[in-house]
C-alpha cells in the first residue's frame, strides 16, 4: 500500500498535474486563438470593453448576484468554489506535496481555517448535490457529469478531513490517504475534458459572448456559394 501511495503522490501526481496543465493550456489557447480569429474576421471591431469587463468581474466575484436569483444555491455555490480553490493549494500538507513534486512552496493556511474551510466545502458539495437532485429545473437539465462531479470532488475532501482532523488507526489512515491521493489525481486528469475546464476559460465568457455578435462581412455571398443558392429568391 505504501508503494502505491508513493506512486500516487509521486509519478502519478506529476503526470496528472501535467495532463491537467497541458489540457487547460490547450483549451485556453484554443479559446484565445478562435477569439483572435473571430476578431480579425469581424466587420466591426468596436467592442464595449467597459461593459464586458464589468460583467466579467461581476461574475468572477458574484457578490451582487447572490440575492438576485436563487440565493441559497448561489451562497452554497460561492462558498463551494472558495473551498475548492483554496484548500488544495494552501493546506500545509499539500504545500509539502507541491514542494516535493514541483519544487516550489508558499505560506500555508492556519490549521483551524483549513478545518472549517474543508467542512464548509463538504457541506456545500452535499447541498449542491441535493439541490440539483430536488430542483425540478436543475435535475431536468443535468447531465451525468453534473451529478457525478460533486461526488467525485467530495471524495478527496472527506478522506482528507478524516486523515487530517480525526483520530483513526494507521491502517485506516493509509487506506483513506490512498483514496485521497488517487481521487485527487483522477480529478486532475478529468478537469480538461469536462465542464471543470471552465476554471480557466470563465474569465473569457463575457468577451466571447459579445464578440460572437461581431459577424464577418459578406457572409451572405459566401454562404450562398457554398450552399449553391446563388440567385435563389428570398
Amino acid at each position, binding site marked *: 500500500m505504501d508503494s502505491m501511495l508513493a506512486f500516487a503522490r509521486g509519478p502519478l501526481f506529476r503526470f496528472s498535474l501535467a495532463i491537467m496543465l497541458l489540457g487547460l493550456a490547450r483549451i485556453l489557447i484554443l479559446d484565445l486563438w478562435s477569439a483572435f480569429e473571430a476578431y480579425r474576421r469581424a*466587420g466591426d471591431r468596436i467592442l464595449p470593453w467597459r461593459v464586458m469587463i464589468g*460583467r466579467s468581474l461581476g461574475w468572477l466575484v458574484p457578490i451582487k448576484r447572490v440575492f438576485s436569483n436563487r440565493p441559497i444555491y448561489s451562497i452554497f455555490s460561492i462558498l463551494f468554489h472558495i473551498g475548492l480553490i483554496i484548500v488544495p493549494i494552501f493546506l500545509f500538507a499539500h504545500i509539502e506535496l507541491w514542494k516535493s513534486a514541483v519544487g516550489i512552496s508558499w505560506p500555508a493556511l492556519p490549521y483551524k481555517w483549513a478545518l472549517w474551510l474543508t467542512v464548509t466545502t463538504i457541506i456545500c458539495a452535499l447541498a449542491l448535490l441535493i439541490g440539483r437532485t430536488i430542483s425540478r429545473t436543475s435535475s431536468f437539465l443535468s447531465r451525468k457529469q453534473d451529478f457525478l462531479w460533486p461526488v467525485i470532488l467530495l471524495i478527496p475532501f472527506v478522506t482528507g478531513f478524516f486523515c487530517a482532523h480525526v483520530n483513526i488507526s494507521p491502517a485506516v489512515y493509509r487506506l483513506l490517504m490512498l483514496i485521497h491521493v488517487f481521487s485527487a489525481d483522477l480529478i486532475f486528469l478529468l478537469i480538461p475534458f469536462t465542464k471543470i475546464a471552465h476554471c480557466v476559460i470563465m474569465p473569457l465568457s463575457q468577451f*466571447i459572448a459579445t*464578440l460572437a455578435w461581431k459577424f464577418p462581412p459578406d457572409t451572405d455571398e459566401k*454562404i450562398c456559394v457554398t*450552399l449553391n443558392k446563388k440567385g435563389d*429568391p428570398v
Partner: protein
Amino acid sequence: MKTSRISSEERARAFKSARKQEVNERQKLNVRYHVEDFDINDRPRRFLETFAAILKHTNYRMALEHFIRMSAKCSRCAVTCQVYQATNDLKDIPCYRSELLLSVYRRHFTVGGLIKGRLMGNDYLTDEKIQEMAENFWNCTACRRCSMECPSGIDHGLITHLGRFILSEIGIAPRALVVSTREQLEGATGNTSAIPVPAMIDTLDFLEEDMLEEKGVAIKFPRDVEGADYVFFPAVSDFLMEAETLMGIAAVFTAAGDSWTIGTGYFDGINYGLFYSDRILERVVKKIDSETRRLKGKNVLIGECGHASRSAKYFLPTYCGGKGAYPVINIMEYTHKIWKEGRLKLDPNVVTEKVAYHDPCNIARQRWIIDKPREILKAFCRNYVEMTPTGENNICCGGGGGTVSIDEIRSYRTTIGGRLKADQIRRSGCKILVAPCANCKKQLRELVEDQKIDCEVVGLHDLIYKAIIFDDKLKIKDKAKDHEVVEE
C-alpha cells in the same frame, strides 16, 4: 419576479394551432406558425450541410466551442425567462433550448462527438429533433434576459438566432417574416409593409396638413434632400399605424431646425434578418447604407424601433465599412440632445395621467439607451412612475424576436409571452405606457386588449407631439385659420 401559472383554458387557447392538419402532414412539421411549402426530403442532411456552411463562413464556432465547455446546467436562466415562468414547461428553459442546437454541434462538428457517434452509433440528427427546434426556437422572444443571468456567459439569444438561421435555410421560417422580407428585398415597393412610394408621399402630405391645422406651424417631412444631416429610417409600419410618432419626430426637427430627410429610394428601418437570418440582415443593412450614400447623408437616423435600431447600429459597421460606416443614431438620442441644448420646449401641463416607460430589449439590454427617454419624460410628465425590473434587466413585451409579426400566434404572445409584462403594467398602475418601438407597441396594445388592462400604449414622440411648444416665430398664425375657412 414570478407570474401566475396559466390555467388549462388559457393554455389551450395559447397553444391552439392556426395550421390545418393537412398542412402539418404535407410539410411533416407541427408548429403554430405558418410556413411556406419547402423541400421536406432529407432534412437532417440539409440541416447539417447548412450548419457546416454557416460555421465555415462565420464566427459562430468560437462561441459554440466555448459554450459547450462552459455550460454548468445551473438553471438560473429558468428564473428569468418569462416564457418558462408562464408555461412551467421544462422545455422552455433557455438552457434546454440552447442544448438542442449545442448537442447537434457537439455530435456532428466536434472530434469527440464524431468518435462517440461512430462507436455508439446513436444521436444522429433526426427529423424529430428538427421538429422540436422549429417549435422551440420560435417560443422564445429573443429578449436575451436569460443571458444576463448565466454565470457561464452563454448567450442563449445568440444560439436561438443561429438555430433559426439554419432552419430558415432549409425552408422553415415563419411565413409572415419571409413574405415581408421578400417584398422588402425583391418586391416592387421595396419595403416590408408593401407601401408604394406615392402612397407614402400622400401620407406625409396629409400629415403635414394635419400638423399645420393642429399646431399652426409648417412642420415638414423633407424628402430626398441631398446632404442632410440625418437620413431617416423608421419602422415602415409607422407610416400606416404610428402617424403620431412620425408627427412628433417631424415636430422635434422643426423645433430644432436641423436638416433631415426621408429617402424615397428606400425608407424602411425594419430588418427581420436580426430575428432569423444573417443573410437577410446583411442585405437589408446594405440597403440602408446605399440609400444614405445616394442622398449623401451624414448620419443614419432610426425611428422608434428597437430591432431596427440595433440591427443598424451594430451591423452597419459590420457589413458596411467598420469604423468608416455611417454613424447610427436612434431618434431618442437626437431628441434628448436637442432637449438638453434647450432647443426643445415641452409643456408640463399637457400630460397629466400616470405614465410609465417600457424599455425595448434591443435598445436597453446592451445599456445603449436607458436614461435619456426617462429624463425627457420626467421633464414634462408630472405623474411618471417606474416599472421594476427595468433598464438592462427589463421584461420583454412578449412579442420580441419577430414573433409580434406572426399574427397567428397572437393568443400565445398575449397569454404566455407577455404575461409577466402584463403583471408589471398592472402593478405600475400606469394609464399611459410609453414604448419607443414599433414591435413593442403592437404587442403591448394587443396585450392590454387581451388581458383587459386599462392602459394606452404610445410612442415617446406621440407624447412629445402633444406637449411641444414652438417658438412664436415658427407659427404661421393665420394659416391654420385660413385652412378652416377654405374647408368650410
